[in-house]
């Protein structure tokens, strides 16, 4: 109850002491004394006070927040409120901050400025009435105030609530690097057969035989979407095949950054295959930034030019079904791929082959057969095995009533 005593003592100080104490508080925050409210409703001896009221910088944040905790007094009615007030520089006058319901026992002041010294006060206001410091006569009686030590907010070096995520990331990184190291040593790595990826050469071969073009649609998202990056990597392999067979390729783009990246990938593929003469700038072309204008343009191109093979690999939204159905109506062999499950049913219903979820990310390794990339795919499988074991363990442990186990995996 030291804080409450301090507050009641300072309340008896004369008014001219406030500025002096304010300057002391600012210069020596650890030893300063709380500034009493200039005008405050009288504390009633019948109304109980909160206890263990503390203020500290909210741990693991970017600053600008002070965490307040306390214990409610026993027997507090549901209509009662706890009023939190703050004294801040330069005037160090108490200003109302928040009315809190009983039972919360926690409040985060997100209006704090880093480096400023604050003190906080809490008191019980019965029946939900607000204490008005500027109208003493009309103000209802409140409980005795409790004041915290001076506190400042600051940014921290580690987000403690993400420790589990950090540990999982480091473990996954170790597994990944170990798997790549094993792959580099020449050990055979088995990857199950993925029908959609085996069909890539078949689709391009068919286009070559018919003498029609291959159309590759890399989704409508930008390069900040990991599925688009995976799609552009697959585009590189498709372009190498079209360069090898001398098949025409058409890559219409919706996002400008994806367009630039796709152009580099295709140009690099034709150079790598030693067929720069077959590469034309218009192979990778920009259409428009609007979703449905893009859909209309690409659909019309499908109908007019009748590509023999269509790849729909990347991140798609509502246009997925329109494009896939249009491609299906032209009789093209279609291979789709998306990691997000929302559009997958449409692709499965309309395309010949669909890369589901992780298969999209494994495609680059599967097609290139590079040991380093295969190693990373192996790491995915190991991590998935660990997750399955943890999931089964979670079912058992939670069934036994141990609720702390799921909490270990919660992140913020």
């Amino acid at each position, binding site marked *: 109850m030291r804080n409450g005593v301090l507050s009641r003592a300072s309340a008896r100080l004369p008014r001219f002491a406030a500025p002096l104490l304010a300057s002391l508080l600012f210069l020596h925050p650890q030893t300063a004394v709380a500034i009493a409210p200039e005008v405050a409703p009288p504390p009633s001896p019948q109304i109980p006070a909160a206890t263990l009221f503390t203020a500290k910088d909210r741990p693991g*944040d*970017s*600053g600008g927040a002070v965490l307040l905790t306390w214990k409610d007094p026993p027997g507090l009615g549901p209509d009662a409120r706890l009023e939190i007030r703050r004294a801040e520089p330069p005037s160090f006058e108490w200003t109302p901050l928040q009315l809190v319901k009983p039972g919360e026992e926690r409040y985060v002041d997100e209006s704090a400025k880093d480096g400023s010294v604050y003190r906080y006060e809490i008191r019980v206001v019965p029946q939900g009435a607000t204490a008005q410091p500027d109208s003493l006569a009309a103000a209802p009686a409140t409980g005795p105030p409790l004041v915290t030590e001076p506190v400042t907010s600051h*940014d921290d*070096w*580690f*987000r403690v609530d*993400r420790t589990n*995520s950090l540990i999982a*990331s480091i473990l*996954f*990184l170790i597994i990944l690097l170990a798997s790549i190291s094993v792959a580099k040593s020449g050990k055979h790595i088995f990857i199950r057969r993925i029908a959609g990826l085996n069909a890539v050469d078949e689709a391009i071969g068919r286009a070559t035989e018919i003498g029609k073009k291959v159309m590759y649609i890399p989704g409508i998202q*930008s*390069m900040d979407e*990991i*599925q688009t*990056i*995976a799609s*552009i*990597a*697959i585009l*590189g*392999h498709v372009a190498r095949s079209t360069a090898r067979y001398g098949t025409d390729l058409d890559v219409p783009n919706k996002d*400008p*950054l994806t*367009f*630039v990246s796709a152009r*580099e*990938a295709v140009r*690099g*593929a034709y150079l*790598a295959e030693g067929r720069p003469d077959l590469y034309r*700038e*218009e192979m990778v*072309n*920009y*259409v428009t*930034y609007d979703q*449905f204008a893009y859909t*209309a343009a690409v659909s*019309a191109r499908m109908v007019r030019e009748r590509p023999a093979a269509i790849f729909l690999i990347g991140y798609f939204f*509502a246009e997925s*079904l*329109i494009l896939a*159905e249009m491609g299906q109506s032209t009789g093209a062999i279609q291979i789709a791929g998306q990691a*997000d499950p929302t559009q997958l*049913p449409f692709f499965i*219903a*309309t395309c010949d082959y669909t890369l*589901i*979820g*992780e298969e999209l*990310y*494994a495609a*680059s390794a599967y097609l290139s057969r590079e040991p380093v*990339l295969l190693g*990373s795919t192996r790491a*995915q499988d190991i*991590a*998935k095995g660990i997750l399955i074991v943890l999931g089964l363990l979670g079912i058992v442990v939670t069934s036994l009533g141990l609720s702390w186990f799921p909490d270990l995996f919660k992140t913020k």
Partner: protein
Amino acid sequence: MNLEFGRVTLFVLFMLIPIVGIALGVRAPALRSRLPLLVAFFAGTIPILAMYIPKNFLSGPQGMSSRLDQWLIIVAGFALLLGIVNVIQNGMRKVSRRESGWPFSVVLLTGLFVTGALGIYGAVSHQGIGFLPDGRSTPFKWIQDSMFLPLQATIFSLLAFFMASAAFRAFRARNLEATILLIAGGLVMAGRVPLLDLLAAPFPALHASAAAGTQTLGKLTEWIMDTPNGAAQSGIIIGAALGAASMAIRVILGIERGYLGLGGGE
């Protein structure tokens, strides 16, 4: 000049190092090809560090991670210019060579130049691209409201028809899996609409039974969506998340380089 740590670090990582790299790469092409990998490493590492280090210079509103997001918009703006140039080049080529479908390119280029000119005029004349002082729409807005939006809605509305045709193909009971899909799909569709209520509407004696049946179908639909469907979706999401993490690490470490046109990996 504001020389805060995050801003200076970004300047060094994404301005000085690339410029020095390009200068050195004039004589060493191998170094030049590795420069984008270095930039990708920094650009990939900073947001990951910001996940765990809440320091203001890194993850604050004006921190390095937030600034990188802002830079993406600026870079995309320049890339959009490249895209527009590409559209004009391709359209001009088709028209001049009278390639197949060249009249469509005429329509495209006319739309591009007219709309672009009206937009630029609105900006230069301080009229804006919304409304005139007398409340009427500007020509730019008229084109958008009267031509562009209806066309956009037309394309979107095609979805309803395509959904029906895709469902018809998917629900053909060719084998056991397709039959299960057909039954589950039928139940979910029936549970999402008041089908029984509609069928029982002419028969007042059946209203109560139809209401109970609709409620049961609704619960069954929820169970199908939450339990078997939810479990399958969770499996896909977990696998995809691991794949995405693996892909991200490969990109950051420069193992995956296909997106730069540098080949699959090394």
